[in-house]
Structures are given as C-alpha cells and as structure tokens.
C-alpha cells in the first residue's frame, strides 16, 4: 500500500500536535473513536471569544498514518475560520486533499466527527459561560 505524498508529509511533520487545558475559556475539545477500533482522535480548538474566530487548534491521534494525517490537516484548516465556517468542513474535502484510498475514508469521517465534537463542546461551554457571566 503506497501512501500519497501529502499523507506522508503530515505523518512525518504533523502540524499542531499537542493539547490545550480543557477548561480554558474558548477551548472546545472533541474526543472520538475507540481504542478497540484502532482509531482515537482528540481535536481541540481555541476560539477568540470576541471575534468568534478559531485562533489555534491542536490534535493528538492514536491511529494509522492516514488518521494522523486527517487530523493534522483538520487542525490546519480550522485555524483562522469562524466557528460557523469550521462546521462546513466535510470529510470528502479531507479525502480529496489527502487522496485517501477507499479503505481509509473512515479516517476522514473520524476527523469530521472530531471537528464537530470540538465545535459542539465549545458551543456548549461558551453558552454556559455566557449565561454564567450574565
């Protein structure tokens, strides 16, 4: 099985590996997948609370090279997007960009799930924070 150049590049030079402290204001965390399935992604966004723009994103992934590449790419794409724009990222965009073969499509699906989970977590916490400060 040969990997596309972009998958190899993200695997060798993963962008934005790391973690934010979960309870920092503006941070949303998504943790998806399952260890027994061989894929777990943790994806985090840090949103500027004034502008609603994602200022930073980080990931950690347990999974194959394509799973690592999909989450690495997702963090790159998230940065600079508003929360609404970010919710429009589709797994098919990741498939096309990384040229993932059919057996690796689930990696892109998981990355989309991770984005959605991080956004949902951010929204939930942000609303709660806003209500608390009111």
């Amino acid at each position, binding site marked *: 099985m040969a*990997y596309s150049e972009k998958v190899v590049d993200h*695997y060798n030079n*993963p962008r934005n*590996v790391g*973690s934010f402290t979960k309870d920092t204001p503006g941070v949303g965390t998504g*943790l*998806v*997948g*399952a*260890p*027994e*399935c*061989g*894929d*777990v*992604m*943790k994806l985090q966004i840090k949103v500027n609370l004034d502008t609603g723009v994602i200022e930073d994103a980080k*990931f*950690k*992934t*347990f*999974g*194959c*090279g394509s*799973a*690592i590449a999909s989450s690495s790419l997702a963090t790159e794409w998230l940065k600079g997007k508003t929360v609404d724009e970010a919710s429009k990222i589709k797994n098919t965009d990741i498939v096309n960009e990384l040229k993932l073969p059919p*057996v690796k499509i*689930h990696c892109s*699906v*998981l990355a989309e*799930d991770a984005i959605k989970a991080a956004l949902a977590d951010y929204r939930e916490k942000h609303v709660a924070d806003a209500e608390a400060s009111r």
Partner: protein
Amino acid sequence: MALKFPIFMDAQSTTPADPRVVEAMIPYFTEKFGHAASRNHSFGWEAEAGVDRAREQLARIIGARDPKELVFTSGGTESINLAIKGIAEMYREKGNHIVTTVIEQRASLDVGKRLERQGYEVTYVPVRPDGLVELEAIQKAITDKTILISVMFANNEVGTIQDIAAIGRLAKDKGIIFHTDATQAVGKIPVNVETMGIDLLSCTAHLLYGPKGVGALYVRRKGPRVRIAPLIDGGGHERGMRSGTLPVPLIVGFGRAAEICGEVMAEEGARLAKLRDRLQDMILSNVDEAFLNGHPERRLPHNLNISFAYVEGESVLMGLNKETALSSGSACTSSTLEPSYVIGALGASAELAHSSIRFSLHRFTTEEEVEHVGARTIEVVKRLRDMSPLYELAKEGVDLKSIRWKAE
C-alpha cells in the same frame, strides 16, 4: 559493515532464496528441463532424479522414513487444503468431526469453515495467553466422530511452538489422524514425524530460503497408513494424490533449501535467538508498556512480537517502512480490516492487537541491522506516543476503560 536499506525483518511472511538454492535450480530450467514423468528418455530420467533427490533431502529434514511419503504441492496453502479436505472426504464414513485451534493460519481456518458448510463439525480449541494449546482441551474436544486433529507446529505471528509430540501421542492413543501445519517450523527447529507421531505435515519452500510456488505434504504410509482424497485429478502424479506436471526446478530448489537448513539449523537458530533476544531487551528496556506476545521460551528463535500500548501498529510501520520491512497485527494492515485474531485469541485487548508489531529475523540478518531496527523502533514509538491521546490520558491517570468511547 555498512547497513543496506531497506532491511528485511519480515521473514515469517517469506524468506529470500539462498543463492546456493538458486544455483541448484538453474540447470533444471535450461538443459535439464525434462518432464519428471517422461519414462522413456534421458530428459525425463534426469528430471526424475532431481525430484527424487529433493524428496530425500526433504524426508531427511522432517525425519520421514520413506521419501515416497512426500507429495509435492504448490505451497503451504495447498498442502493444508489437501490434508484437511483429503482426510475429510476419505474418512467421511468414519466420522465428520475435526479438532483444530483458534490460532491456525487462515488456510486451515477457512478450510474448516468450508467443511462446516458441507456438514462437518469443527471444534476450534482455544489457547492459553502464551499461545500454547492445552492437551486436555484437545482431549475434551475429541468425540467418537473425530477423524482428524490439526494443530499448527509453530505460530506465524507469535512464534509459539506447540507440544506436538504430546498431541501426536494423544492422537495415536485415540486412533485419530494427526496433521500439523509446520510451514513456520520446518528448517528452523527440529521436526521429526516419527518421534512426534505426525501423520500429515504441511510445509513450504519459500519460508526456508527456497523458491515460492512449491510446498509439500507428508502423508504417513505405515503405522497407520493414511489415505487422502486428491483435490486435483489428472495424470496420477504423486501417487495419485496430486496430479499435475511437477515443477522440477522449484522442487530441486526446495530440496536443496531443506538440505542447507539441516546443515546449519543448530548454529543458525542459536545465532538468531541471540539477535532476537538483543532486539527484545533493547526494546523492552527502553519503552514502557510494551508487551511481549506469545510464549517467552517456547517460541521460534527468529520471532519477536511486541504490542506497544497506545500506538497503532500501522503508524509504527509507516515510521519505519522506508528503511525496514516489518509486519503488524493492526487492522489497517490486514485485508479483512480486523485486528489480528491470533493476538486476540491470546486474550489481549483489541487495542493491543492493533498495536502489535512482528519482527522476524532470517539467515542474512546482521547484528548491525538488529541494532538499527531496535533503535529506530524505539524512536518511532516514542514519537507516536507523544501524539497519542491515549498515552496522554493514561499518563494523567485516567483509566481508559472508564471512558465511554463512541465508535464511528
């Protein structure tokens, strides 16, 4: 000596042919090209002599009394098919039950499944966490309808070596035919069909530094005389058990490969075990939560299988694949998209099956290669752990089992 890349450490998938084997084969492609069944001219006699010699060489390495007990096939898969299906068909009147284990290689398991669809019953005996099959478990599985016990000699993933002689005695006591898939064992460790009570034995050339495309099935002729129904009908070659023109060059290579293995086995096994132990010590002393799969002692000298918790196997291979060829039990590296059923059968979690890496050494593996592969594996695993959310959680003291994971 300078390292040459890529390094091949996947020798339980296949082995490179020994140059001496290739040398022995070459004349049989060109000047000695005859059909081994041509009875009336020198071309045929020459080819037949080559085949006869190979049969003797092979008989010697498995301790067969008579070279005629060996039937040449296209490889391990065919030998296994011929053994199990051949017995099932031949002894149908006597019974319809087969006892085997859960860690057999795919060929055996798939033959079992097919036979089940045809009305046979197959019991897949579980193994202990170290990969050994308990004799009592086999004994308990036997019924008055059992016609065959089929247990692999040494496992292809974790290298665990079964107590074949004990199983052979049990089979003999019960009057049941005993087949062993010895594809990983022949040429590597002592195998003796007489002292071990083996009635049928499958093996293949390409795992003992011979060519791909040829294997053999040992079929006992005396005490008891074992009969099998053929899979392939035709000219009645191989005493009617396997028709088809014999691939003489491949068979000659197989014989030569077996002969060389016989000469070097003790020394080679000791050398590889030492290198393997070095690799194992290096990795286990530098990586936390790395677990040896299989039996620590009763295993093939060239096999090492380790699960690296919190990192996925394919990602480890990807970090090494420019320079080293290894294999993994990860689902991502299997055609079935399931993690290794062998590691699973040892009672390991699916996560650890996804995380398993098999290192298998061979005749041409050097100490420098072992040092390099060990050091690089440690590096890659550490790098991947730094980006593993599971490792992070575990280090924070979170019990991963307490998390409600949402599978996609």
